[in-house]
């Protein structure tokens, strides 16, 4: 129960922010941090709780963004109707990739590689067909009103992303307190033992990748509604895939709050870097890359790991032990 209270307290605190903060810059910072937390939480469900590290998570993000874009621009759908369909598309892609990969027993590094390959395939497809705007991409017409799922004020977007993050937090909390979550973590920690105890590892992993895909697609939905534009490189390129795994690894994989903490830390780091080095392209990411290396080297359990007891320190799922056998 404590966990649930924590989630709602967090939601309330952030929801109150627009009343105390009016700067567009600051609100955008909060929004983008929450956005990173959402992507991170989506990845965390499959990677942290499920132990399947994906290096191509953009494949779900891009699908959500493009579904949203295509339904509105090419078919004239209302955004509110399109959003759940886009999330469902993410889950469907998850079912496909998971169904195929897990059916053939792909784990560890091989699974990471195959997700990368799928992301690249989708990128090429999106880049080729007029349906998705080919190389030019898709742009959503600016039409700010809540009915169109676009908001005139930053506060509107803040509440949108906050809602999505709360959903993700609740989903992760549920993983920690449910039978399904126990099964998933058992499969992560030792798939053979889990099978010997009656767990259907294939179905469990499949469900995880579908949930993860749906949440990641929701991130794509948010992206295109907030920034109004998507193209193959943004949608399916390595940027989003890396962004999705950075926050959980920094904050602590397999935990409820890891992605949120990681997102905040990375954002602060980014701002700090910008302050020191200006807006030069690439500087932020150099720092993030270094952080990634240092985290795996010294803090594989992430920031949350620093605060765990000595006994727990040796056992929690770490960036080192999480990925399963190749």
């Amino acid at each position, binding site marked *: 129960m404590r966990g649930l209270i924590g989630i709602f307290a967090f939601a309330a605190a952030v929801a109150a922010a627009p009343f105390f903060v009016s700067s567009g810059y600051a609100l955008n910072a909060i929004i983008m941090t929450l956005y990173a937390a959402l992507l991170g939480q989506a990845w965390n469900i499959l990677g942290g709780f499920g132990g399947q590290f994906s290096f191509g998570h953009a494949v779900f993000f891009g699908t959500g963004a493009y579904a949203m874009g295509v339904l509105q621009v090419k078919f004239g759908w209302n955004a509110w109707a399109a959003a759940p369909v886009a999330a469902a598309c993410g889950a469907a892609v998850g079912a496909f990739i998971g169904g195929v990969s897990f059916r053939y027993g792909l784990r560890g590094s091989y699974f990471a590689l195959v997700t990368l390959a799928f992301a690249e395939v989708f990128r090429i497809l999106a880049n080729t067909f007029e349906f998705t705007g080919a190389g030019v991409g898709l742009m959503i017409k600016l039409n700010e009103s809540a009915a169109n799922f676009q908001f005139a004020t930053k506060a509107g977007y803040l509440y949108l992303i906050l809602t999505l993050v709360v959903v993700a937090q609740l989903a992760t909390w549920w993983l920690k*307190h*449910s*039978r399904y979550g*126990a*099964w998933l*973590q*058992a499969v992560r*920690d*030792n798939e*053979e*033992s*889990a*099978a*010997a*105890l*009656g*767990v*259907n*590892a294939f179905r469990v992993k499949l469900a995880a990748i579908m949930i993860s895909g749906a949440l990641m697609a929701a991130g794509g939905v948010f992206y295109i509604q907030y920034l109004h534009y998507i193209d193959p490189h943004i949608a399916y390129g390595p940027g989003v895939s890396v962004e999705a795994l950075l926050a959980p690894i920094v904050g602590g994989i*397999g935990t409820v709050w890891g992605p949120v903490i990681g997102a905040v830390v990375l954002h602060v780091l980014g701002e700090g870097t910008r302050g020191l080095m200006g807006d030069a392209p690439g500087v932020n990411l150099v720092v993030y890359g270094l952080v990634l290396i240092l985290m795996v080297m010294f803090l594989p359990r992430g920031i949350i790991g620093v605060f765990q007891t000595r*006994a*727990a320190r*040796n*056992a*929690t*799922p770490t960036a080192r*032990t999480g990925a399963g056998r190749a």
Partner: protein
Amino acid sequence: MLEARGLSISFGGLCAVEDVGLQVPAGRIVALIGPNGAGKTTCFNLISGFLKPDRGSVAFDDRDITGLAPHRICALGMTRTFQIVQPFAAQTVRENVAVGAHLRVRSRRAALARADEVASRVGLGDELDKLALNLTISGRKRLELARALATGPKLLLLDEVLAGLNPQEITEVIPVIHAIRDTGVTILMIEHVMQAVMHLADDVYVLSNGRLIAQGTPAEVTNDPVVIEAYLGTGTAERLRRMAHA
């Protein structure tokens, strides 16, 4: 309860198990013994669904389960343990056992409660909050047992559950296994520790080089010259007999 017939499997030309059949009547404890490399764990893998036999069949509760997936077989009431214990290292004893409990129970709270109860039965009551990683070998073996018990099996396959335990620990575990049988669970166990086999088993099957070479009560089997030869080498049975009569 369990009937295996003509089980055979080869790995790349090497015959690991050849024409093995055994029966485990309900409510009994049956032991599967034999020298190292005889194929005992392979038999377990064949029976519990981790390997598909090239030939032969397995029937559980009069139902053909040959080739079924391990988790399906477990759901039907047969649970196996592993010789090399594989706990969920990152989780506590309670959480480990709860995974087993969840086979029958949906509620998290109920599963954790059941885990407490089962763990206490095997003597892990004081270590429920310990991380599996931090248990001694004896603790890990008990954990393996508790996890399997929590699934509420009708038939328990124990793979060398006593291996690595010192004599004191062995005398502590034997009554636990007896108690499990007394609650109505049938047990098929692979064991090297002969003391345990003598004390526990109603029936013994002896495997050597992938084939069954003897079957009977513990007393019959340990006096069988074929069995002695399998463990100690050709001619030993004769030498022992001569020494006994000398």
